């Protein structure tokens, strides 16, 4: 046994092969760890990016719906492109994260520690790797290096099973994927529905044109052709298109033609034929909103058919309901009726004509206007009387100005607080005009308590004798001194402190 331990000896005679073995082990372990972390990072980022699988189709779906509502073609991109983007983005992000993870330098000590852990070497390789770099070695350090050198062969051949924290996919991942599928299907449905809607609208349009073409000539003969007006689409066709977008059932092509022809016939036979288009633009908000936009898309200036149809309806409506002789130009009226994209179906629309606004005022609105006028009259009359004075409708007696004293000490039974002796004084004069409601001005205490009576008595002083006490010896106290206050805690507080310390010192 050694009695003295040397401080250390030079580390010059170590086996260079051992150092090389350690280098090989460290490099292999670092590569394995880097690979494992790279894979873990790929999964982690992929897991974090999973919402994109649903969000990308959702964004596409919402964009489709927005385009569709504005009348555009919702088929913005092929569905396969959306699917590829939704799946490809998380993969791309995962790949980038994985590549970044590969660049992270793995510490040599960390790598050696992993090898030690896998081979259950209890830190022998890590310690030896540390000791071989020291300039001076003690006997125990050399022994540790030699001990580790016998175990490097196993370390060089072992494949490091590095298992970083696994990524938990969980139920949320499946939900995101399912949501993505739903949105993709929704996008496909929107595109398909739009195609069907367009097809139905076109067929209805063709039927309308065919049916209205026979009746167009008499109408054209009645009225002079209007100047250049943007082409107005057929109302029935627009209605059919808007109904298809709202999911409403539309008649089949075979059923649609008789309806259209009937309405055309009816409008041709009556003077107020344009009322149907007017109602379309004023009463039904949703229909009127969709109509102008559709008109703007389908109109073609200079089309004689489209110019001829709405103008007579509008004119006939105006002649029937509005007695005003002032006649507006054809183009202006037709533009107002058509809405030109601004008609919202409300009677407060500034662009709507007067006759239409009066037509659409309901009875309840009239009642409200009457009430308002009555209230304004009341207020006006009150302002004329001074604004804050009580209303004459109250029928209260006028304020008494009697300042006479009451009946002896009793209060004046007629006192109303405005004047004269009374129990409660109230504000008067300018102060009473400041507020609408008079606030009583109470006086606490008695203002005049009256004279104070002072009674004095005179008594002659008398002498008193004070007895003297003689000094005597005093013995010890007999009897108890009674209870004495002590500084200890009360019993309940004592118990509280005792419980506290008992819990504190309680054995585990």
């Amino acid at each position, binding site marked *: 046994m050694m009695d003295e331990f040397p401080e250390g000896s030079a580390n010059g005679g170590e086996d260079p092969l051992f150092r090389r073995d350690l280098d090989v082990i460290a490099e292999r372990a670092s590569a394995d760890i880097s690979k494992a972390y790279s894979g873990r990072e790929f999964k982690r980022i992929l897991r974090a990016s999973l919402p994109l699988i649903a969000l990308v189709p959702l964004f596409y779906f919402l964009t489709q719906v927005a385009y569709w509502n504005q009348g555009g073609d919702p088929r913005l991109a092929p569905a396969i492109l959306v699917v590829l983007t939704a799946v490809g983005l998380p993969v791309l992000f995962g790949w980038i994260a994985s590549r970044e993870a590969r660049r992270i330098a793995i510490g040599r000590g960390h790598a050696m520690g992993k090898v030690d852990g896998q081979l259950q070497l209890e830190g022998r390789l890590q310690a030896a790797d540390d000791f071989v770099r020291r300039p001076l070695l003690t*006997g125990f350090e*050399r022994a540790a290096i030699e*001990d580790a050198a016998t175990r490097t062969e196993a370390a060089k051949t072992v494949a490091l099973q590095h298992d970083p924290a696994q990524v938990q996919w969980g139920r949320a991942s499946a939900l995101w994927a399912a949501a993505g599928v739903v949105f993709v299907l929704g996008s496909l449905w929107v595109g398909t529905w739009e195609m069907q809607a367009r097809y139905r609208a076109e067929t209805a349009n063709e039927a309308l044109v065919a049916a209205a073409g026979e009746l167009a000539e008499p109408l054209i003969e009645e009225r002079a052709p209007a100047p250049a007006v943007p082409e107005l689409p057929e109302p029935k066709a627009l209605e059919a298109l808007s109904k298809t977008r709202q999911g409403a059932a539309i008649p089949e092509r075979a059923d649609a033609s008789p309806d259209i022809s009937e309405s055309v016939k009816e409008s041709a036979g009556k003077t107020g034929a344009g009322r149907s288009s007017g109602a379309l633009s004023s009463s039904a908000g949703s229909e009127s909103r969709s109509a102008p936009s559709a008109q703007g898309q389908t109109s073609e200036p200079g089309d004689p058919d489209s110019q001829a149809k709405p103008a007579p309806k509008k004119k006939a409506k105006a002649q029937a309901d509005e007695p005003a002789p002032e006649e507006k130009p054809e183009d202006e009226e037709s533009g107002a009726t058509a809405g030109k994209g601004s008609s919202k179906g409300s009677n407060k629309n500034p662009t709507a004509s007067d006759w239409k606004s009066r037509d659409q005022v309901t009875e309840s609105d009239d009642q409200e206007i009457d009430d308002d006028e009555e209230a304004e009259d009341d207020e006006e009359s009150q302002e004329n009387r001074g604004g804050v004075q009580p209303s004459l409708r109250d029928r209260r007696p006028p304020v008494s100005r009697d300042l006479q004293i009451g009946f002896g000490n009793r209060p004046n039974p007629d006192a109303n607080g405005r004047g004269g002796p009374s129990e409660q004084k109230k504000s008067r004069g300018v102060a009473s005009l400041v507020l609408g409601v008079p606030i009583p001005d109470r006086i606490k205490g008695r203002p005049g308590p009256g004279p104070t009576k002072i009674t004095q008595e005179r008594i002659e002083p008398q002498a008193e004798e004070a007895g003297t006490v003689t000094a005597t010896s005093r013995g010890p106290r007999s009897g108890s001194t009674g209870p004495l206050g002590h500084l200890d805690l009360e019993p309940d507080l004592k118990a509280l402190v005792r419980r506290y310390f008992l819990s504190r010192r*309680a054995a585990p």
Partner: protein
Amino acid sequence: MSSQDASAAREDAQAFIETFQAIKGEVSRMMVGQDAVIDGVLTALMAGGHVLLEGVPGLGKTMLVSSLGRAVDLTFSRIQFTPDMMPADVRGTSVLVETEGGGHELQFEEGPIVANLVLADEINRATPKTQSALLEAMQERQVTVGKRTIVLEEPFCVMATQNPVEQEGTYPLPEAQLDRFLFKLVVGYPAEADYKEILRRTTGGTDVELSAVSKGKTVNKMRKIVRSVPVPEHAEDYAIRLVMATQPGSRYAPALVNRYVALGSSPRGAQALLLGAKVKALLAGRFAVAVEDIQAVALPVLRHRMMMNFEGLSEGVTSEKVVSEVLGSVEANAGAPV
């Protein structure tokens, strides 16, 4: 030269293991079913530290220490701490003695603290003033009385016992006193199988006679061997991180520590971790400290160096639970990518 150094180190390590096992075997003749406690006491003795034994009465705490004193052939003294004990009763005092010429002079009488192995029985029954008389002896290995300083002979080891149940009339050890104990060992009940052997040994007609299998000088040599065990950098870093993790507010502290711990371990805790780990490394047949050795001694080293706050006490959070949490949260290998 280098191979000679290495072979000498191997011989030392082997001698250490043999000595340790010899002492343990002798003590185990008397103590039954307390292997972990015997290991802890011997580890502290070899590492040069002091031990606080905590357990209910009747588990053989006092017998363990006295057995150790006999097995190692050390001077052994026992101090039964009581509330009326004074510091002079521990350190010693000057007494007036009559000289041959009829005169008188003051002569210093050493207290029971001057011994190799001191059993401070029921240390928490003494007042803090008396408890503090041990502070200098435990840390500086010397006793100062007046102007006289007595250097205590090595090996010097204080083994204190305390009873966690009878808390009435006791004085809990202050943090400064607790910090000076290398280990705090909790003595538990023996297993069912050990009861028969205990009864046979203690109620039979023959007494167990212990013989000295080692000496004080040997123990000192073992202590030097322990000190010469090298600590790799990663193990040193791990011990530091472990101690810092017990300190609320540190970068390594887990949430449990930040919430329930009022006072964490001091740097003395890190020293104790490495000293204990060196003994464990030698016993495991290694020549350098590993992370596993530090983990093995973390509980007895750190459990008495932490103080719970009020919330921790009210929630019943024990220091053992905190140490377990710290061991789980601190990475053994620093520098991991994630």
